């Protein structure tokens, strides 16, 4: 019995070439087959999709570059006029098109990006002396209502990126320089908390039918990798740069490492059992393997850098750890595809 799905899946050119090489295509009809394949490619749709996406990205990037170049010929009045006009035009057009329609959504994204440029130009013209984090914080605050109104996942993600940038700049410009306040490990712990909070919120919301608009595996992957990154930096700092923080309290390192272990463990369990996601599981496993190798390398080579045996030991441990990682990923992949098949049947 043939699997209906495999017979009805559109063939790629590579698959067609494979069938041809194996002599499974009728030789006298070979040209006809490839001709039919070529005609089945939807070029108009593809060009339309990418022309829209790239056109929008290039245009917004161009506007960003234009104001970043601080062109002297353009008066401040005209700069504000152009940008405010752009924001107003994009937002009005989004309203006219409809906030639930794709074009309306993207127009609101454009308005949100232009709002950020407008705030930056305000600082550029008036030399307000504001810290960069204030620009991003204000930007995040101003577009927040649009994010709620639009119900559009890319705009929600843009808001998360802007908010995270504000937080990291706040840490770098305010919190850490005042040395008696917090150290970088504490700042990274805070950033990880924020990102994990966003991830938990996203996981909770996207499972509800009302928030179907928020779904998208790419959001999960981005949030998982970012959370793991912030926590891993604390562990890596502890492994490689303890000297810098020797006179500082060690609790952030302990707390960060504990949080890292919990995040890796819970992430692995959650994304292999509860909400199957191969990339998220792999991120947890690979971060764990890489960090363990770093720790072993530091620990072993610290005492036997000049001896070949120490290097050999670390090399063999790396092979073992990454073999284990690959094994876990393959097992998770099989489990996930098995469950998907079960659901389909």
């Amino acid at each position: 019995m043939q699997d209906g799905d495999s017979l009805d899946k559109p063939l790629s050119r590579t698959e067609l070439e494979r069938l041809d090489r194996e002599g499974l295509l009728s030789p006298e009809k070979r040209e006809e087959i490839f001709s039919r394949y070529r005609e089945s490619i939807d070029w108009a749709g593809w060009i339309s999709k990418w022309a829209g996406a790239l056109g929008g990205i290039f245009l917004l990037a161009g506007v960003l570059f234009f104001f970043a170049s601080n062109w002297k010929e353009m008066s401040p009045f005209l700069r504000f006029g152009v940008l405010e006009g752009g924001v107003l035009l994009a937002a009005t057009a989004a309203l006219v098109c409809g906030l639930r329609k794709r074009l309306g959504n993207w127009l609101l994204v454009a308005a949100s990006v232009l709002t950020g440029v407008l705030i930056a130009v305000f600082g550029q013209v008036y030399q307000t002396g504001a810290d960069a984090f204030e620009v991003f914080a204000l930007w995040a605050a101003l577009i927040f209502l649009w994010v709620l109104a639009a119900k559009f996942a890319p705009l929600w993600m843009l808001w998360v990126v802007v908010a995270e940038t504000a937080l990291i700049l706040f840490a770098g410009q305010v919190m850490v320089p005042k040395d008696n306040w917090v150290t970088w490990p504490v700042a990274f712990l805070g950033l990880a908390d924020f990102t994990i909070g966003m991830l938990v919120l996203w996981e909770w919301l996207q499972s509800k039918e009302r928030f179907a608009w928020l779904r998208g595996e790419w959001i999960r992957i981005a949030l998982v990798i970012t959370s793991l990154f912030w926590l891993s930096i604390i562990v890596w700092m502890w492994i490689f740069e303890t000297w810098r923080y020797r006179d500082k309290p060690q609790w952030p390192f302990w707390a960060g490492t504990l949080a890292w272990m919990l995040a890796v463990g819970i992430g692995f369990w959650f994304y292999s059992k509860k909400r199957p996601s191969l990339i998220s599981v792999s991120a947890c496993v690979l971060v764990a393997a890489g960090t363990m190798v770093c720790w072993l390398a530091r620990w072993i080579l610290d005492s036997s850098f000049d001896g070949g045996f120490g290097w050999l030991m670390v090399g063999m441990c790396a092979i073992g750890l990454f073999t284990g990682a690959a094994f876990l990923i393959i097992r998770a992949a099989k489990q996930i595809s098995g469950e998907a098949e079960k659901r389909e049947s």
Partner: protein
Amino acid sequence: MTLRDLHTLGLLKGPVEGADALLAADSKAESDAPWIARFALGFGAWLAGVFLTGAVVVGFEAIFNSETVLLLLGLIILAGGTALMHFKRGIFAQQLALAWNFAGYFCVMIGTHDLTRDDFLGGLIAAVILCPIIYWLSRNAVQRFLSVAWVWALLMFHCGDARQGVLLFVGILLLVAVVFGGLSGWKSGPFWRPTITSCLIGLFGFLWLISEEWQWVSDSYYSQFRLPAGIVVALGFSGLLWFLTRPSTSVGTTRLVLLGIVLLAVAWVGAPGIAAAVGLMAVAHERRDRWLEWLGILALIWFLIVFYYFLGVPLFEKSLWLMGIGVTLLIVRIFLSRDEPEPMLLADDKPEHDSP
């Protein structure tokens, strides 16, 4: 076009079960070791290879202290790793063999580099000789990928180090030719796939090399290659698309010429990498190859970032170019959407996965 279509229209030779089984076997090999698992294996082997090379260099150099010994030792390790990979299955054996191969390659390269008095040319020649041998003997896609990657990586190092401009240009030409050969269907299939992927990444590496203002060379050194490389890229990808779609009417000659002009225009501004990324995305769409399309998208994002920081073109000029191309593309989009149905409500969109 599906297998069922081919079967219904009588275009298949033999039963449909045979064709289905063949394609299922290919995709099973993919699902048995998904790309992320292969990445884990490759990355882990690379990391372990660095430490194993350290073990060889620290352990044996203290005894022999000779470049020739290091070179020979590297060849022995390489042969051992390849043999292990050839005869042993299982993840651990594959990982160990890959790490050995890395260490062997590293030792051969360091040995030849030292023997030829700190010249990358020696390593390049060694990599060129080893590449076909390892490629044919190995059954592992990661090892095949890496045997090709060593060649272009050393070519790139040699060109950067010795300022061999002609060689750099020849390298780009060769990489485009291999990509053309692979993606045109002349040499496709699982055996050639690692070569094509490796050469594409190598091509992007070369284009990145000439798209930046590096500190170790004068500002004008790489700028002279941007336009010729851009022409090669624009002609290469639009030519490839023409080759794949001929004599179909789905992509007309006018559209292909237009694509060539756009790619050339982008390359002219000093961004051949963006031109190559867009060209690859178009070819990937024609081949219905998601992996290549993603490679193109990632390369596009990367080269846009590189372009922002590229100092060869003033920021003001860059902004005008970007806005000009952006507006042109949006006009094309509006022009094409006249024939499209009304966009659907997002709420009516099918969810991307079932809610748990």
